[in-house]
């Protein structure tokens, strides 16, 4: 972690921004996809019809922004610290589905989500180390 810049260039702030961008982009993609959903049309499996929704374009902008700030974060914070922290998004997304998208999440699904999140928390560090070597 060499001389960390402060202010907007603070890598911890950028890590937070990256997580928020990923979170928001997931919700926007879902909203956008639902707007133009054509489940009876086989072509819509390709997802290309999703481009008709402006929300999907906003999501793309956020994905690119999250990618840029993530690359910046990796210059200052080691992957095996940054990656486990970035997994906070796995808790935010289901909560966002419930609060902002109004998805009805059954007890069974909440239990499944909790298991996945705890599994991810456990493996985040070893996985980051593996990814670094791969």
């Amino acid at each position: 972690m060499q001389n960390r810049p402060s202010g907007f260039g603070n890598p911890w702030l950028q890590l937070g921004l990256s997580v928020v961008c990923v979170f928001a982009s997931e919700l926007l993609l879902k909203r956008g996809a639902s707007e133009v959903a054509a489940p009876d049309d086989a072509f819509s499996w390709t997802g290309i019809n999703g481009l008709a929704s402006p929300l999907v374009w906003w999501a793309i902008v956020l994905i690119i922004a999250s990618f840029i700030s993530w690359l910046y974060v990796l210059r200052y914070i080691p992957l095996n610290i940054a990656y486990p922290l970035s997994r906070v998004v796995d808790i935010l997304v289901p909560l966002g589905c419930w609060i902002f998208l109004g998805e009805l999440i059954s007890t069974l699904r909440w239990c499944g989500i909790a298991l996945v999140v705890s599994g991810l928390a456990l493996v985040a560090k070893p996985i980051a180390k593996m990814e670094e070597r791969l």
Partner: protein
Amino acid sequence: MSFLAFLFILISLVTFVAAQLILKKAMQFSATKGMRNSYFVSRVAIGVVLMTVSFFLTLGLLQRFDLSYLYPFQGLSVIFITILAAVVLKEKLSARLAIGALLITAGILLVSMS
């Protein structure tokens, strides 16, 4: 969930993980050899194509399923990385990793039944 949906979830995850690793290799390569060479450009191009495939498949899936249903499946990417590391790096599975992978798998099973 139909077989088709499961297949697309798998393809979108595998392409995403592959793209990440290929892009990372390309960036590492560029650090020493620069960006003006066909190796770097072709790897970045492959990475971007794979990312795009993953993105659009996800968009197709989101038209049919709840985000709270699809999102947990991203946990499977951990299993792909573990398998890949075992094959490429001959890395042994630690107890922590094995338990984590089991938890994720059990969680995804519950979500897919919901």
